[in-house]
């Protein structure tokens, strides 16, 4: 018995001539349906159909129709669909509304006017299902990106939806966090999940789909060719941390002594909430160290935040890149930078209309343009398909070749293996 079905569904975002989804006929049954495909190919659009965000939130043009849990997608208001379908978004920042974790998980239930006792039981069950009971009293602002993702999932599970839809839920989680999410999904009746990093998921999937250019087909092709590493010769000292203690609210890191060189690529790994982002922000000068000294060589610092949306504010992707180039006084051509990240076709688009993977690429192009002296990238491969990840590796290689000191925080093991000269583990307040 299908929980969701789409019939001859085509969908165009406002003002777009090319359909985001083209004549999709699909029945989703019980178990885990895994959705893969290139960035911008239509994965998120397909997922958004299941809770009515497409078309009711995004507008545009639609043909065909569908049903979820017996509700017609075109005539049922999204608030009704939301009871049957739980949705975990690509960036949990957009999903969290309450100041404290417990309140966040209870938020949906409060809106259904659920009795307090039942609410308490469900909040507890949902948090423990994602292995997040310890987060219960934490303030949401102090959570790491990965922890936020777990809380977003818990708040969806608390609603006990018929269908759970997740858009790249593990893209910024450490291996333990990803395992916790995947473990929590195992007990659910129906799940649709889109993801680029498929390791560990493919084995659990009852069905695999690929969405490309708006069309859905069965099966996922997984081909991965390891690339040869080019050796690098790091130069002089580019940045240095001396006895640094840092944290957004009280010291998360203490007694950190580190040195990075020109043309060196340093990868920061470690569990969610371990302090990777804190270290990057301190290095970028965005967070004042609580103790110690931060020294950077002169020149521009390129900083890619974990949520690229906060960075993009110009009317087009090209304008984003041009702004950076103008500010850095570089003679580099916007066209070249755009081409490097595969953005030429998207150059005239409004950055916030792009898919998450495309937006990530746009943000990277916007920060690394104009030969920075120091490039600090927080989860740069988040939301990226393999082709985009390959482009990123080339960009990092070029930056390092030009003498830029690169520091990246990531859970992406492939990226670390492909580009890092040195791997540091940030965990429990220390760096090893």
């Amino acid at each position, binding site marked *: 018995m299908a929980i969701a079905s789409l019939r001859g569904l085509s969908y165009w975002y406002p003002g777009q001539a090319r359909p985001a989804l083209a004549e999709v006929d699909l029945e989703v049954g019980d178990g885990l349906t895994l959705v893969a495909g290139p960035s911008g190919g239509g994965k998120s659009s397909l997922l958004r159909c299941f809770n009515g965000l497409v078309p009711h939130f995004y507008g545009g043009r639609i043909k065909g129709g569908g049903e979820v849990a017996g509700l017609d997608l075109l005539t049922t208001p999204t608030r009704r669909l939301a009871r049957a379908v739980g949705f975990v978004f690509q960036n949990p920042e957009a999903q969290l509304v309450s100041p404290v974790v417990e309140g966040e998980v209870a938020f949906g239930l409060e809106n259904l006017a659920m009795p307090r006792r039942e609410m308490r039981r469900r909040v507890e069950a949902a948090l423990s299902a994602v292995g997040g009971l310890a987060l219960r009293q934490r303030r949401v602002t102090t959570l790491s990106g990965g922890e936020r993702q777990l809380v977003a999932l818990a708040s969806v599970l608390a609603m006990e939806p018929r269908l759970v839809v997740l858009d790249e839920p593990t893209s910024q989680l450490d291996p333990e966090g990803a395992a916790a999410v995947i473990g929590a999904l195992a007990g659910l009746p129906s799940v649709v999940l889109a993801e680029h990093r498929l390791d560990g998921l493919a084995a659990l999937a009852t069905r695999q789909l690929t969405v490309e250019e708006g069309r859905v087909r069965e099966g996922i092709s997984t081909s991965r060719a390891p690339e040869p590493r080019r050796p690098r010769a790091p130069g002089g000292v580019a940045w240095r941390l001396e006895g640094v203690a840092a944290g957004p609210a009280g010291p998360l890191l203490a007694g950190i002594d580190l040195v990075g060189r020109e043309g060196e690529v340093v990868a920061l790994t470690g569990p969610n909430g371990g302090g990777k982002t804190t270290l990057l922000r301190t290095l970028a000068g965005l967070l004042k160290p609580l103790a110690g000294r931060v020294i950077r060589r002169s020149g521009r610092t390129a900083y890619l935040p974990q949520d690229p949306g906060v960075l993009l504010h110009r009317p087009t992707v090209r304008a984003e890149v041009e702004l950076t180039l103008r500010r850095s006084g570089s003679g580099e051509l916007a066209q070249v930078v755009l081409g490097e990240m595969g953005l030429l076709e998207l150059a005239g688009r*409004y950055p916030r209309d792009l898919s998450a993977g495309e937006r990530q690429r746009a943000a990277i192009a916007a920060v690394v343009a104009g030969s920075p002296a120091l490039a600090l990238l927080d989860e740069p491969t988040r939301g990226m398909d393999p082709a985009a990840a390959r482009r990123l590796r080339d960009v990092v290689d070029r930056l390092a070749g030009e003498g830029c000191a690169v520091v990246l925080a990531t859970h992406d093991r492939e990226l670390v293996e492909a580009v890092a000269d040195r791997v540091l583990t940030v965990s429990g307040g220390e760096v090893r």
Partner: protein
Amino acid sequence: MIVALASLAGVALFLWPYLGLGPFPAAPALAVAGGAVVLLAAIEAAARRLDTRLLALLAALAAVDAALRLVLVTGIGGFSPIFFLILCAGFVFGPTFGFLTGATALLVSALATGGVGPWLPYQMFGAGWVGMFAGLVGLRWHSLPALAVAGLLSGFAFGLVLDLWDWSYLRGAPGAGFTPGLPPAAVIAAFGRFYLVTSALYDAFRAFGNVLMVLLLGPPVLAAMQRLKARFTLVVE
């Protein structure tokens, strides 16, 4: 159109003293203005033309306008930044939404700045009409210069219309005050003298301020609103 009916209540309010009916009491006037806005919003919501997303936008615009008025409580002459968003909202989302934006913006900003007084209901209608006018202009001529002209005209018209209210209290100023019972031509001539002497220059600041704001800040704000409007529109084939 329902907005025309709501406006009729405003027209009646403004003309009341000139129909020989004496001054309209302040508290019922506010009730008329508030009632017209609430009723209009309720009818639009029931007809599904004003959905939750537009309502959220309306609230946001009113709040931003209230904040703008807090920043610049007394403008330069009649200039005020609050008309800019009202003009843009009407221009993009149509006369009814423009009217609602103008009226609620004035109401909310009056609450925020402590500007609640007998003038408030008249200001609500006046600003509502500014938004409505921008909406009507937008239906016919959808270009930036057209909106600038709408800003210019409505800048003067807003002052003129509101003068109708306080002028009715100006008694015993020979030649420029309101004397009940005179023939209409004499009343209009007296009002014209009053307007030229007291308000024309003051209103010019508002009118040309509107033009300046529309031309300088209009393009990005209108583009943002157009993007929202595109999202609010769904075509089912």
